[in-house]
C-alpha cells in the first residue's frame, strides 16, 4: 500500500521500532456499527451500474476505482497500487430505512421477548433481574454458563406472554403480548382487546363498516428505536456485549472489488460480475425506489412494499437460502450470499482455511516394485524434473550443485532457480547457466531437481489414519508411475488396479527431519490402533515363503547358493550353513534358507525366537504337528513350521516382523522385509505360479462328495419343512414355529458351503494354486475355493434368505409359499459349473446388497470419523502425563491408566509385554553355561528384591498392574512349573549334590530350569523395555484415538445384526451401533438389559423372574371381564384365572389388581373399585346416567390392557442358558441369565431375584440416569469394545477409554455431535469450521466472544504452528545482555 501522492513528506523518517514478527494472540468477535462502516469506507456507492460504455468503471458505481482496481489494467484511486498490490478498500451504502440482518433475527426476537415494547425496559421484576445480573456479572461465569443464563432469562420472559397472556410492563404499564418470529419479520400479538375502544368509536360512524385491525408486525424502525432506548444494564443481562441497535442494518459496507472480481468475457465485450456485486446492484435499486417514495409527499404511498423488498434483498445478500422470500423474488439460479461463501465443504472455512492448496506435489498411478526397499518410493524422472528442493550451497555439495545448475531445468539432474542470500532469484530457464554455475558461492540456495535419497511424503486418499501419509526416500527412476514395495500396500490400503497416489516434497531441513523421524515408514511399521504390525509381507511374498519352507523342498548347492544371492544386492557376505543332508547327497532344505535370510552371516547378532501357530496347525504335538503348522524359530533358525500369513503377514502381534521390531528395532524388521521381498519376487519368477481352469475343475470324487453333502442337507431341510407343516416342529426359545423353521433351515444351508469347503481343502492336490493361496493366507479363503469348484451356497439379503418379490414366493418359477432351498436362494452350482437362471438372479440380489451397503457405509463412516476427529483433535499428553485439551482442561489424569503407548504394546490384549515370549528368548539367547538352576525359594527371593527397586514403584513410573503381572508370571507360572517338574522327576526341593542322579538335575535345567543370570537378564529386559514404552509427552493421542476408532468403521462389513445368545434376539452391530454409542442417542434400536440372577443355576427360578419382568396384562390373567347390570347400578366384574396365575408363578390377586387399575391411566378412583374376594373384583363406572352405557363399554375395552405385573417399558424377556466349564472339576454347569428387551434398568434391577450389581444395559443414556456417570463411562467402553470385537477387530482399550472419558468428563454424557462438541469446545473458529458455520459466527459477535488461538483447528485456520507434539514445548534461551560501549573507540588498542 503506497499512497504515493498523499504521503506526508517529512525530512526525517519517523522511527518505527522493529518488534520482530507479530503473532496473533486472539480474535475478538464484535458487532459493526454504522459509524465504523462509514469511517472505514473510501467512497459512497449509490449507482447501480458497473461500467461506462468506454469500459471505464462508473464513479460511485459498484466498481468505483476507489475500492480497488477492477481489472489488471486499472489502478486503485485510493492507494494507487496496481491490481496485484492493492488489497482493496471498502465503500458504503446508506439504507433509507433500517432492515433486519437475517443472521441476527433470532437474537433480535429473543431481545424483544424480554423487553417492554414501549419503554424498552426488561419485563422481569426487579428482584429477579438483579439476581440474574449478579450471576451474569460474576467474573467466574464462563461462556457456557452465561449463554445458559441468557436462555433462562428469555424463557422466563416468554413464559409470561405465552398464548393469549399479556403482561403489563412494571415500568410504564404497557401491555406486552407474545413476540413471534415470522418470515423475515417479527410479530407482536397483543390480541384484539386493545382495539375495542377505536372500534367502538368507529362504530358510530356509518360510513366505515369494517373494524380496524392493526397488523401485529414490529417493523425494523420501531425495533431500532426500542433498542436504542435499552439500558446498558439490560443489555448485559441479555448477554449482549454491544449496543443492540447494531444488530439491525442501517448501512451496508460495500466489500472491496478484490473479493468480488469482475471478469471480461467474449473478448472484452461483456463483463461477468460476481454474485455479490449483482446482489448489491439489486439492493441499490430497491433502496433508491424506497428513498424516492419516502420523499414523495403523497401519504398514500406504497412505501411498505418497497421496504419489504429491500428487506428481502438485504436478507439474501447475507444468506441466499433464507426462508420466507416470496416465490416471485426467487431467481432460478440464486445469487450466493456471504453465508454460502463460508459454509459447506467447499466453503471458505473447510475449503480454504482448514485445508489449503500446496505446491511441490505430484500425483500419478502407482505400481509395485519388490526390488525397492520398503522405505523407498520410485519417482519418475518426469516428476523429478518439476519438483525441486532448495539446497544451500556448501563445500560438500558445491560440485554437485554446479553440475545441476549447468544442466538447467530440462535435463535431469538439474536445477530451476538460484537464490542469493540477498533475496534475488535467478531462473535457469534462459540465462547463461554456465556462468551461474561458475559463480556459485557458499550460502546460495539452488532449487535443484529431486534426487535419490530426498525425503518425500507419500499419501493415498482416503487418509483414514496417520499411516495413510508416510515419508519415504525418493528413488528417481524412468517411466511414468510411482512405485513402491508391495509390503507397504497395507497402511495405504492401496492396490495397483489403477490407484493414484500423491506425493509432497518438504522444503526445509527441519520439515525433512521431522518427516523422517515421525512419519518415516520405518517408524510406522506398527499401527497405534492395536500395536499390530501393519507393514508386512503380502500376497506373492507369502505364497513363495510358504512354498519355500515346505518340508519337502530341497536344494542342491547350486540352487541354494543361487537363491541366497537373490536376497540382497550382493553387498552382504553370506555364510553358508551346514547342509541338512550330507549323505547320500548334499542337500539344503528351504527352511535353512530362512535361517540365512534372518541372519546371513554369523557376525550379525540377530537372534529371533518365536512360536506361532499357522492355519494348518492340528492343535496338538506342537512342533511335531504332522501338517507342519507350528512355526518355531530358535536363535534365528527355522526349526519347524511352514511359514504363512500368521508368521509373515500383517495384523499379528507375535509374527516374525513384530518380534524383530520389538527385539531388534525397526531397522532389522525393515531389512528382513526387504530381503524377503527380493527373494520371493525373484524366486517365484523362476518357480512360476499361476491359476488355470484345471485348478478349479472338480475331480470325480469331489463331485460325488459335494452332491452327497447337498442331498443330505436338502433332506434335512425337507424334514424340517414337513415337520413344520404338520405342526410338530420343536420351537426354539423366544421364537415361533415359522422363525424356528427359518433359523434351522438357514443354519443347515449356511453350513453346506463351509462343509464343502472343508471337503475341497482335503480333496485338492497340494499343488493346486487356489489351495496354496488359501493355506498360506495370501489370498482367498476355503469358501472362495468352494464357490469356484463346488457350490456357491446360500445367498442372503438383509441377513435372511432371499425375500418374496412376488406374492408368497421369491420368483414365479417356484410354487407358492415354497420354503425349499432352491426357491429361497440356495445356489447349488459352482462358478465352474455355471449358475442356472434363477440362481443367477438370487446371486445378483446378494451382490447388489453388498454394493449398496459399501456405498452407504463410506458416507456414514466418513462423517463419523470427521466428527470424532473434531471432538478429539486437540487432546494431547502433557509433560505431567495428563491428557488435556487445548484449553488445558484435564480429560484423563494418566492416559489409559498406565501412560503406555498403544502402538508398542506387545501382548495381544494390550498389555505392555508378552512375558512368555520374552522368557523363551532369554532362555534361548543366554545358555546356562554350567550354571546351576535356581530353586523355587531362590527365584522368589530374586524377583521380590528386584521388584522393590525404585523403577518398579509408582513414583518411578511403573503401574501397579504391570508390577503385579510381572511377579505373577514369575512366581505363579514359572516357579510353580519348576516345582511341579521337580516333583515329577522325583527331585527334592533343593539341589542334589554328589548323588547319582545329577543327570536329572541337568535335565530339569534343560526342561524348565532357570539360572540366576537368566533370571536377572529377564527381569532387567522387562523393566527397561517397559519404561521405554511410555507415551511421549506431546503426543496427539486424541487424534490417534479418533483415527483408531474411525478407521475400522470403513471395514465393518454387512452384519448389522447379531444374535445375543438366543436366536431371534438381535443386537444392532456395525456402523449403526457405533453411531448410536458415539451420538449418545436417546433412543436406540435394540436396547437389551442383561440381568444376572442371584440363583443362576435354577431354571424354574429364572422362569419365575422372567414372568415378573415381562408385562402381564389383566386380559391375560382374567377368566372373565363382564358387564353386570343390576336394577340399581351397573358394574364390571373381573374374575381372575388363579390357575394360570399359579402356573406362571405370578403373585397376583384381586388386591394387587386393584392397585394396578388405580395406577393405570384409566382415571378410576379408589372408591370405584371393590374387591369381592381374592379372585374377584368389581369396578363401578363413574358417570352420569345418560353416559353410563358408554363409560361401561369404555372400561370393558380398556381393562384387559391394564398391566398387572411387570415392567411397562419391557417388550419381552428371554431366559438365556450359558454353558460354563469349570476348569478344576471339568463339570459342565449350566447357568441362566435373563435377556430383557426394552428399557427400564432401574425396575429390572429392583425385581426380587435379580442380581442388581451385575445387571447391565446396553443403553448408555439409561445407565447414566440410573447408575451415574462413571457407570456410563464403563458402559461406553464396553459397548464399543463389544461391537468392534464382534466384527473381529482389535482396538486398544486405551483409545476407547479416552473417547469415553471425553464423552463424560463434563459430568453429563456429551455425544460426538454438534450439540455435544459445542459444549466441549469453546473456540468459535473450531465450531465454525465444524458445522453451522455462520450461526456460530453470528452468535460469537453478539456475545463478543474472544477466541484465543489454542486448538488445532484454530491454529490451522490462522496458519500458526499448533501447541501439540513438537510444538508443545517452548524453547527459551538465556541471552546475555549486550553491553554497549558508549565510550569513544580507542584509537590504538
Amino acid at each position, binding site marked *: 500500500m503506497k499512497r504515493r501522492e498523499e504521503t506526508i513528506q517529512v525530512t526525517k523518517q519517523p522511527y518505527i521500532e522493529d518488534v520482530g514478527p507479530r503473532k496473533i494472540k486472539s480474535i475478538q468477535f464484535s458487532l459493526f456499527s454504522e459509524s465504523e462502516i462509514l469511517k472505514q469506507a473510501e467512497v459512497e456507492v449509490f449507482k447501480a451500474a458497473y461500467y461506462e460504455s468506454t469500459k471505464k468503471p462508473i464513479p460511485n458505481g459498484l466498481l468505483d476505482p476507489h475500492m480497488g482496481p477492477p481489472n489488471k489494467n486499472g489502478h486503485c484511486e485510493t492507494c494507487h497500487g496496481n491490481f496485484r498490490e492493492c488489497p482493496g478498500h471498502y465503500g458504503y451504502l446508506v439504507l433509507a430505512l433500517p432492515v433486519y440482518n437475517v443472521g441476527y433475527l433470532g437474537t433480535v426476537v429473543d431481545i424483544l421477548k424480554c423487553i417492554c415494547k414501549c419503554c424498552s425496559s426488561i419485563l422481569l421484576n426487579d428482584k429477579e433481574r438483579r439476581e440474574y445480573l449478579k450471576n451474569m456479572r460474576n467474573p467466574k461465569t464462563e461462556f457456557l454458563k452465561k449463554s445458559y443464563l441468557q436462555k433462562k432469562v428469555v424463557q422466563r420472559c416468554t413464559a409470561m406472554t405465552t398464548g393469549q397472556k399479556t403482561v403489563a410492563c412494571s415500568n410504564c404499564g404497557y401491555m406486552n403480548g407474545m413476540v413471534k418470529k415470522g418470515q423475515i419479520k417479527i410479530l407482536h400479538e397483543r390480541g384484539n382487546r386493545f382495539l375495542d375502544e377505536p372500534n367502538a368509536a368507529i362504530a358510530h360512524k356509518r360510513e366505515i363498516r369494517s373494524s380496524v385491525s392493526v397488523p401485529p408486525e414490529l417493523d425494523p424502525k420501531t425495533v431500532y428505536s426500542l433498542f436504542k432506548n435499552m439500558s446498558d444494564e439490560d443489555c448485559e443481562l441479555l448477554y449482549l456485549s454491544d449496543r443492540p441497535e447494531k444488530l439491525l442494518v442501517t448501512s451496508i459496507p460495500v466489500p472491496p472489488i478484490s473479493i468480488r472480481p469482475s471478469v471480461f468475457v467474449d473478448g472484452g465485450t461483456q463483463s461477468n460480475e460476481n454474485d455479490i456485486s449483482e446482489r448489491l446492484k439489486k439492493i441499490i435499486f430497491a433502496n433508491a425506489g424506497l428513498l424516492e417514495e419516502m420523499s414523495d409527499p403523497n401519504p398514500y404511498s406504497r412505501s411498505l412494499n418497497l421496504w419489504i423488498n429491500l428487506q428481502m434483498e438485504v436478507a439474501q445478500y447475507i444468506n441466499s437460502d433464507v426462508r420466507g422470500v416470496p416465490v416471485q423474488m426467487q431467481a432460478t439460479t440464486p445469487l450466493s450470499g456471504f453465508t454460502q461463501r463460508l459454509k459447506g465443504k467447499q466453503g471458505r472455512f473447510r475449503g480454504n482455511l482448514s485445508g489449503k492448496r500446496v505446491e511441490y506435489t505430484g500425483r500419478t498411478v502407482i505400481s509395485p516394485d519388490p526390488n525397492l526397499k520398503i522405505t523407498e518410493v520410485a519417482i519418475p524422472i518426469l516428476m523429478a524434473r518439476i519438483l525441486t528442493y532448495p539446497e544451500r550451497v556448501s563445500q560438500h555439495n558445491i560440485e554437485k550443485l554446479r553440475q545441476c545448475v549447468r544442466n538447467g531445468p530440462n535435463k535431469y539432474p538439474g536445477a530451476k532457480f538460484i537464490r542469493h542470500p540477498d533475496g534475488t532469484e535467478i531462473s535457469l530457464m534462459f540465462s547463461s547457466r554456465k556462468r551461474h554455475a561458475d559463480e556459485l558461492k557458499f550460502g546460495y540456495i539452488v532449487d535443484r531437481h529431486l534426487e535419490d535419497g530426498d525425503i518425500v511424503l507419500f499419501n493415498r486418499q482416503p487418509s483414514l489414519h496417520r499411516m495413510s501419509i508416510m515419508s519415504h526416500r525418493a528413488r528417481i527412476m524412468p517411466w511414468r508411475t510411482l512405485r513402491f514395495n508391495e509390503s507397504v500396500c497395507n497402511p495405504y490400503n492401496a492396490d495397483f488396479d489403477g490407484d493414484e497416489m500423491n506425493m509432497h516434497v518438504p522444503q526445509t531441513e527441519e520439515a525433512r527431519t521431522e518427516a523422517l523421524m515421525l512419519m518415516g515408514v520405518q517408524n510406522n511399521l506398527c499401527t497405534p490402533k492395536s500395536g499390530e504390525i501393519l507393514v508386512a509381507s503380502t500376497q506373492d511374498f507369502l505364497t513363495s515363503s510358504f512354498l519355500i*519352507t*515346505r*518340508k*519337502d523342498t*530341497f536344494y542342491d548347492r547350486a540352487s541354494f547358493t543361487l537363491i541366497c544371492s537373490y536376497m540382497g544386492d550382493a553387498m552382504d557376505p553370506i*555364510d*553358508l*550353513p*551346514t*547342509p*541338512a*543332508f*550330507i*549323505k*547320500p*547327497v*548334499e*542337500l*539344503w*532344505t*528351504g*527352511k*535353512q534358507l530362512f535361517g540365512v535370510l534372518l541372519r546371513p552371516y*554369523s557376525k550379525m547378532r540377530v537372534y529371533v525366537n518365536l512360536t506361532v501357530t499357522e492355519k494348518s496347525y*492340528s492343535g496338538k504335538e506342537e*512342533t*511335531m504337528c*504332522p*501338517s*507342519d503348522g507350528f512355526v*518355531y524359530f*530358535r*536363535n534365528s*533358525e*527355522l*526349526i*519347524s513350521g511352514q511359514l504363512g500369513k500368521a508368521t509373515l503377514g500383517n495384523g499379528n502381534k507375535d509374527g516374525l516382523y513384530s518380534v524383530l521390531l520389538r527385539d531388534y528395532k525397526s531397522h532389522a524388521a525393515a531389512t528382513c522385509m526387504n530381503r524377503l521381498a527380493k527373494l520371493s519376487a525373484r524366486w517365484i519368477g523362476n518357480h512360476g505360479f499361476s491359476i488355470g481352469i484345471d485348478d478349479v475343475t472338480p475331480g470325480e470324487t469331489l463331485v460325488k462328495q459335494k452332491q452327497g453333502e447337498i442331498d443330505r442337507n436338502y433332506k434335512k431341510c425337507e424334514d424340517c419343512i414337513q415337520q413344520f407343516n404338520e405342526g410338530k416342529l420343536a420351537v426354539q426359545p423366544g421364537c415361533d414355529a415359522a422363525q424356528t423353521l427359518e433359523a434351522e433351515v438357514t443354519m443347515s444351508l449356511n453350513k453346506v458351503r463351509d462343509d464343502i469347503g472343508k471337503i475341497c481343502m482335503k480333496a485338492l492336490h*497340494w499343488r493346486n494354486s487356489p489351495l496354496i493361496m488359501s493355506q498360506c493366507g495370501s489370498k482367498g479363503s476355503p469358501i472362495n475355493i468352494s464357490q469356484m469348484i463346488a457350490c456357491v451356497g446360500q445367498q442372503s439379503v438383509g441377513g435372511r434368505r432371499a425375500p418374496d418379490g412376488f406374492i408368497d414366493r421369491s420368483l414365479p418359477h417356484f410354487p407358492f409359499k415354497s420354503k425349499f432351498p432352491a426357491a429361497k436362494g440356495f445356489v447349488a452350482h459352482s462358478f465352474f459349473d455355471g449358475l442356472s437362471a434363477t440362481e443367477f438372479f438370487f446371486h445378483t440380489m446378494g451382490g447388489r446388497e453388498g454394493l449398496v451397503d459399501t456405498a452407504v457405509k463410506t458416507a456414514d463412516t466418513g462423517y463419523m470419523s470427521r466428527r470424532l476427529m473434531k471432538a478429539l483433535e486437540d487432546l494431547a499428553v502433557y509433560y505431567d502425563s495428563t491428557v488435556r485439551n487445548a484449553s488445558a482442561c484435564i480429560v484423563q489424569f494418566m492416559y489409559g491408566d498406565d501412560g503406555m503407548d498403544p502402538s508398542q504394546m506387545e501382548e495381544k490384549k494390550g498389555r505392555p509385554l508378552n512375558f512368555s515370549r520374552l522368557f523363551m528368548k532369554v532362555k*534361548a539367547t543366554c*545358555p546356562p553355561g554350567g550354571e546351576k538352576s535356581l530353586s523355587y525359594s531362590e527365584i522368589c527371593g530374586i524377583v521380590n528384591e528386584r521388584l522393590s527397586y525404585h523403577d518398579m514403584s509408582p513414583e518411578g513410573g511403573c503401574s501397579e498392574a504391570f508390577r503385579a503381572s510381572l511377579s505373577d508370571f514369575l512366581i505363579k507360572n514359572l516357579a510353580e512349573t519348576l516345582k511341579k*517338574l521337580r*516333583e*515329577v*522327576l*522325583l527331585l527334592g526341593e533343593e539341589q542334589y549334590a554328589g548323588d547319582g542322579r545329577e*543327570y*536329572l538335575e*541337568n*535335565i530339569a535345567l*534343560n*526342561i524348565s530350569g532357570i539360572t540366576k543370570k537368566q533370571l536377572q537378564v529377564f527381569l532387567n529386559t522387562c523393566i527397561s523395555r517397559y519404561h521405554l514404552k511410555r507415551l511421549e509427552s506431546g503426543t496427539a493421542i486424541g487424534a490417534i484415538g479418533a483415527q483408531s476408532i474411525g478407521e475400522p468403521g470403513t471395514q465393518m462389513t454387512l452384519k448389522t445384526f447379531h444374535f445375543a445368545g438366543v436366536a431371534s434376539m438381535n443386537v444392532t452391530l456395525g456402523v449403526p451401533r457405533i453411531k448410536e454409542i458415539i451420538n449418545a442417542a436417546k433412543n436406540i434400536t435394540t436396547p437389551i438389559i442383561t440381568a444376572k440372577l442371584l440363583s443362576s443355576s435354577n431354571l424354574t427360578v429364572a422362569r419365575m423372574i422372567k414372568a415378573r419382568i415381562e408385562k402381564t396384562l389383566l386380559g391375560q390373567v382374567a377368566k372373565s371381564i363382564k358387564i353386570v347390570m343390576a336394577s340399581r347400578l351397573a358394574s364390571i366384574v373381573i374374575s381372575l384365572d388363579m390357575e394360570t396365575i399359579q402356573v406362571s408363578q405370578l403373585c397376583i390377586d384381586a388386591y394387587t389388581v386393584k392397585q394396578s387399575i388405580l395406577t393405570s391411566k384409566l382415571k378410576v378412583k379408589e372408591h370405584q373399585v371393590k374387591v369381592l374376594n381374592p379372585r374377584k373384583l368389581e369396578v363401578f363406572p363413574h358417570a352420569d346416567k345418560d353416559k353410563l352405557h358408554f363409560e361401561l363399554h369404555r372400561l370393558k375395552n380398556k381393562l384387559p390392557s391394564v398391566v398387572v405385573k411387570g415392567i411397562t417399558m419391557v417388550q419381552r424377556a428371554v431366559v438365556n442358558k450359558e454353558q460354563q466349564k469349570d476348569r478344576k472339576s471339568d463339570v459342565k454347569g449350566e447357568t441362566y441369565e435373563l435377556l430383557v428387551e426394552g428399557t427400564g434398568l432401574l425396575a429390572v434391577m429392583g425385581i426380587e431375584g435379580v442380581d442388581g450389581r451385575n445387571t447391565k444395559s446396553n443403553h448408555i443414556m439409561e445407565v447414566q440416569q440410573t447408575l451415574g456417570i462413571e457407570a456410563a463411562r464403563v458402559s461406553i467402553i464396553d459397548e464399543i469394545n463389544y461391537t468392534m470385537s464382534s466384527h473381529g477387530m482389535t482396538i486398544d482399550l486405551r483409545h476407547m477409554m479416552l473417547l469415553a472419558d471425553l464423552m463424560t468428563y463434563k459430568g453429563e454424557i456429551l455425544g460426538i455431535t454438534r450439540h455435544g462438541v459445542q459444549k466441549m469446545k469453546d473456540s468459535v473458529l473450531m465450531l465454525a469450521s465444524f458445522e453451522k458455520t455462520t450461526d456460530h459466527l453470528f452468535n460469537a459477535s453478539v456475545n463478543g466472544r474472544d477466541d484465543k488461538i489454542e486448538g488445532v483447528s484454530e491454529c490451522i485456520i490462522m496458519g500458526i504452528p499448533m501447541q501439540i507434539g513438537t510444538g508443545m514445548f517452548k524453547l527459551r534461551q538465556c541471552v546475555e545482555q549486550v553491553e554497549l560501549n558508549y565510550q569513544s573507540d580507542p584509537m590504538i588498542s
Partner: protein
Amino acid sequence: MVETLFEDIFTVTQKDPDGKKFDRVNRIEARSEQFDMFMLLDINTEIYPMCVKEKFMMVLASTLNLDGTPDTGYFIQGNKKSLADKFEYVMHGKLYRISEEGSGKHVKADIFVSFGGLLMQLRGDPSIAAKFELDQRLFLLIRKV
C-alpha cells in the same frame, strides 16, 4: 574312535502315522532294541527309501571328525575322512527341545532335533537325555542292517 552320543539299532514300526502329507518326506515310527527307545523321524525317502519292518542302525554324534575335534559350525566341502564314510544317510541338525513325559518311575525324557525342518523325536529313559544339551549341533547317521 570317535565318541558318539547315542547308538542303537531301530526297527521301523510304522510309516506316516498321521497319513501321508508330503511327496518326498515320510515320517517313520521306530523302536530300538537296546535301550527301548521310541522314535519319530522325518526322512527324505526320495534319496533314501525306507520301508516298514526295516532295521537300521542310528548314531547321533556331535562331530563327524574322526579325531573327535568339535564341529566348527562352518561347512567345508572336501573329501576328508570322516565318520560319515561308514554310513549311508547323514543329516545335520540342532537339538531344540528337551521335555519330560509321564511321572514317577515311568518318567520318560524326549529330545527333539530339527534337521533343517525334518524333525526327530527320541523318547526314552531320562539318563540318555542327560548327555544332550540344548542348542547342540548333532549329526544323525543311519546305516541299514
